[in-house]
């Protein structure tokens, strides 16, 4: 997946999440809850307003003399309004300035109503007081009248009636406040003013008090009525209704918006569900695809495995064929090796046999036959013959000489046959060694190096003699060692044979071959040095390679097998030559392994 695609997906994810969040916030039911609370507050506000009005009226009709109830509704309303204001002043609830306008209207109305109620309280209190006092004042005046003398009383009858009328008018005025009534009371007051001077002192004071109270009623009653009308005219309830309408309208809008948001949310949810379904389908498809690809892969894998197996089998076959071929080649090589070595030894055998047969041909034993013939001719007079005859007399001496000669002959033959038998033994060794070659068995046995060298020389003795090679022996102090006799012999025979061949073309000086055996640094060194043709520089590295030879009839096997044998004995075979014509020195180096009992 590319980076841009990932970013795109992340963007879509964030977008969907933010839409969801936005819709969630938009669809909050808070508005509805606070609307209910607001409606409730307004309802209680209206209730309190009604209580307030009610208390005003109660005070107006003197049902209540306690003005506390005219104060507490206002406190309650202030408290309620503060709560309502907090809710409704929240931004976003109403169109800007709409709420502020309504609030200002309401507060103005409340302030005005409070002002009027306060004034009403003041005026109503004194008015009620005076009205309540009127009957007492009247009683007081009437009582004073009653205490007057009959003559005075008769004289002041009109005043008493006027006062009474005024009192009644005033009480009536308290109920029905009209201009006419006011005028009548004013008239009555003036009349009382006029009458006052005719009254005795005691009554004058009472009348004055009454007059002042009626004047107060006349002044305060219209004022109180006016205030009541003013209070009534304050559209506080109407304001609250307007606010309710505003709240309702806004709530309806909010509800409509809410519903719209719900529908949007529903649509969005459907959209999300569809996306989910689509994704699920995609996922299922992906799974199917993955499954299909997996099975295809499995099949391909199986096929591949089959092919690999087949190839492996073929390879195995090829390998076994190759191995067969190699084995055969190896067998041929071994055969060549064996035959070469056997050939070398056979040379010695041949020489020995030749020698024996030559000796036998020229044997002195034939003389014995001749002597026996002489004896047989003279068998009848043997004694005579032996004692008398010229020839006969020589016979015993001849026989004696013959016996001696035969004995010498016999000794030579015996030696030669022993040599022959040794060579045959060597052939046997070679064959048995080759038979156990596969296991690379090495037969370690105690060896005396000088004897070993002598054996090797003896095996080549015939050829060396024929080629007039002088062997110079420089055997150092070498202890008895543990070694593989056969391999050592193989190497030494080969090296001696090679040295002999190398000096075949030498005619200008003696053909000297030097055999040397020394121990240097825990290492046995046996060297074969010739003074022959030498080795050219270019051949130095190839000389141990398989199949390399400089001889016409050579097969390039001898030195190779020698080098191998040396390595098999944990040693190595090296050559040194200063160049063609300077001879060569082959050195066999082996780790020194002392035989038991050696220091």
């Amino acid at each position: 997946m590319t980076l841009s695609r990932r970013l795109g997906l992340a963007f879509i994810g964030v977008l969907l999440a933010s839409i969801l969040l936005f819709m969630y916030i938009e669809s909050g039911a808070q508005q509805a809850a606070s609307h209910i609370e607001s409606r409730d507050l307004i309802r209680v506000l209206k209730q309190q307003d009604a209580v307030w009005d009610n208390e005003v009226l109660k005070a107006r009709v003197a049902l209540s003399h306690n003005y506390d109830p005219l104060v507490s509704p206002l406190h309650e309303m202030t408290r309620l309004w503060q709560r309502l204001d907090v809710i409704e002043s929240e931004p976003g609830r109403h169109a800007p300035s709409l709420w502020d306008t309504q609030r200002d209207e309401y507060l103005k109305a409340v302030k005005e109503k409070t002002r009027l109620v306060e004034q009403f309280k003041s005026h109503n209190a004194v008015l009620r007081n005076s009205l309540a006092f009127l009957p007492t004042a009247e009683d007081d005046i009437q009582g004073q009248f009653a205490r007057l003398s009959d003559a005075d009383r008769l004289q002041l009858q009109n005043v008493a009636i006027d006062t009474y009328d005024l009192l009644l008018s005033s009480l009536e005025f308290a109920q029905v406040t009209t201009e006419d009534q006011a005028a009548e009371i004013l008239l009555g007051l003036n009349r009382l003013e006029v009458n006052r001077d005719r009254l005795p002192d005691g009554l004058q004071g009472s009348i004055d008090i009454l007059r002042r109270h009626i004047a107060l009623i006349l002044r305060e009653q219209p004022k109180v009525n006016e205030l009541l009308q003013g209070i009534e005219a304050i559209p506080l309830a109407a304001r609250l209704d307007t606010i309710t309408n505003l709240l309702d309208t806004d709530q309806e809008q909010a509800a409509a918006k809410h519903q719209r948001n719900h529908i949007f949310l529903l649509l969005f949810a459907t959209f999300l569900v569809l996306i989910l379904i689509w994704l699920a389908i995609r996922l299922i498809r992906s799974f199917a695809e993955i499954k299909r690809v997996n099975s295809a892969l499995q099949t391909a894998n199986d096929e591949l495995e089959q092919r690999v197996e087949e190839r492996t089998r073929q390879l195995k076959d090829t390998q076994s064929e190759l191995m067969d071929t190699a084995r055969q080649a190896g067998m041929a090589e071994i055969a060549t090796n064996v035959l070469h070595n056997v050939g070398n030894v056979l040379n010695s055998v041949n020489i020995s046999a030749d020698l024996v047969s030559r000796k036998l041909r020229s044997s002195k034993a034939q003389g014995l036959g001749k002597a026996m013939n002489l004896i047989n001719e003279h068998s009848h007079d043997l004694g005579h013959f032996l004692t008398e005859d010229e020839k006969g007399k020589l016979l015993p001496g001849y026989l004696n000489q013959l016996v001696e000669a035969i004995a010498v002959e016999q000794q030579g033959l015996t030696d030669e046959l022993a040599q022959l038998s040794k060579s045959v033994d060597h052939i046997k060794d070679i064959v048995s060694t080759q038979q156990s070659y596969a296991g690379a068995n090495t037969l370690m046995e105690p060896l005396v190096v000088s004897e070993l060298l002598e054996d090797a020389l003896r095996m080549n003795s015939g050829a060396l003699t024929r080629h007039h090679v002088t062997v110079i022996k420089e055997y150092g102090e070498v202890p008895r060692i543990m070694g593989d006799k056969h391999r050592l012999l193989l190497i030494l025979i080969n090296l001696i044979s090679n040295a002999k061949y190398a000096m075949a073309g030498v005619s200008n000086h003696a053909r000297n071959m030097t055999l040397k055996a020394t121990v240097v640094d825990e290492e046995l060194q046996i060297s074969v040095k010739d003074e022959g043709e030498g080795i050219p520089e270019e051949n130095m590295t190839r000389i141990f390679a398989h199949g390399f030879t400089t001889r016409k009839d050579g097969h390039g096997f001898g030195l190779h097998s020698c080098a191998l044998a040396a390595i098999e004995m944990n040693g190595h075979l090296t050559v040194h030559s200063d160049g063609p014509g300077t001879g060569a020195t082959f050195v066999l180096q082996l780790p020194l392994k002392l035989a038991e009992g050696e220091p």
Partner: protein
Amino acid sequence: MASHGLILALGLLVGLSTAAHAEPLDEPLKPLPTVPNLDPKRVQLGQRLFNDPRLSVNNTLSCASCHRLDKGGADDKAFSLGFDGKPVEVNTPTVFNASLNFHQFWDGRVDSLEEQVHMVVISPTEMGSTWETVVKRIADDPDYAKAFSNAYPDGVNEPNIRNALADYERTLLTPNSRFDQYLLGNTDILTPREKFGYQRFKEYGCIACHQGVNIGGNMFQKFGVMGDYIADRGNPTRADEGRFNVTGDEADRQVFKVPSLRNVARTAPYFHKGSAPTLEKAVEVMFKYQLGREPQKNDTELIVEFLKTLTGEWEGKPL
């Protein structure tokens, strides 16, 4: 029969309960409410502030300097002395039960104790300070700072100082006056003369203005309904215009908040200028200028005796 028995039993029960607790009287005067349940940390702070002269600009006056709780919550002088040693314009009203007044000050220019505190602190004749100074002084006091941050989430500031003082004043109620006990049903607590006094109080119409839970303090009234008291007294000042100074309404000239009569026997001198040195004198003025009545012989005395029953208790002791 069973139901009759039940009704009888119920009736007896009701009868017993009425006998045990006499019903409160239904009068225009009402007994004091109980002390509101307020945060004691704030109240304690308010008490410290109430007695703290650092509220005045020159550290000379605390609230308690004029509202002396041992003098009925008011001053015994007609005019308390301001921070500058000069007398203020009006007589100091009592702080006791002030929270029950519908407005504060003689002219009722504010309707909450918080605002009342504000007015006094910044008044050039009373404490003469500024809130900046006061808040700084209080905030610089580690004790105050700690107490404030314990009582208020936002620590020392002007509204909190005002609120603490107001809360303390809300606890300054004087319950258990003899008259309250009477209202609560203990009708034997008053002497016959006192009861007569109360009856006169109602008959003459004192009760028209002095009613409710605070026996006044719930309305404005013109001083001089039946005569011009201020002219008769002489030497009128701006303070005599009363509520007019607040509203500018002609109808409000010489209109004052009706003062509470609770503890009135302990808050002499009387009226907004302390022009009445004794209760008798004050009652006489009221008769003449407010009621427009001539009291019968002894009625003033009876009323004064009644007024003396309105003295409540503070910290368990009568004022």
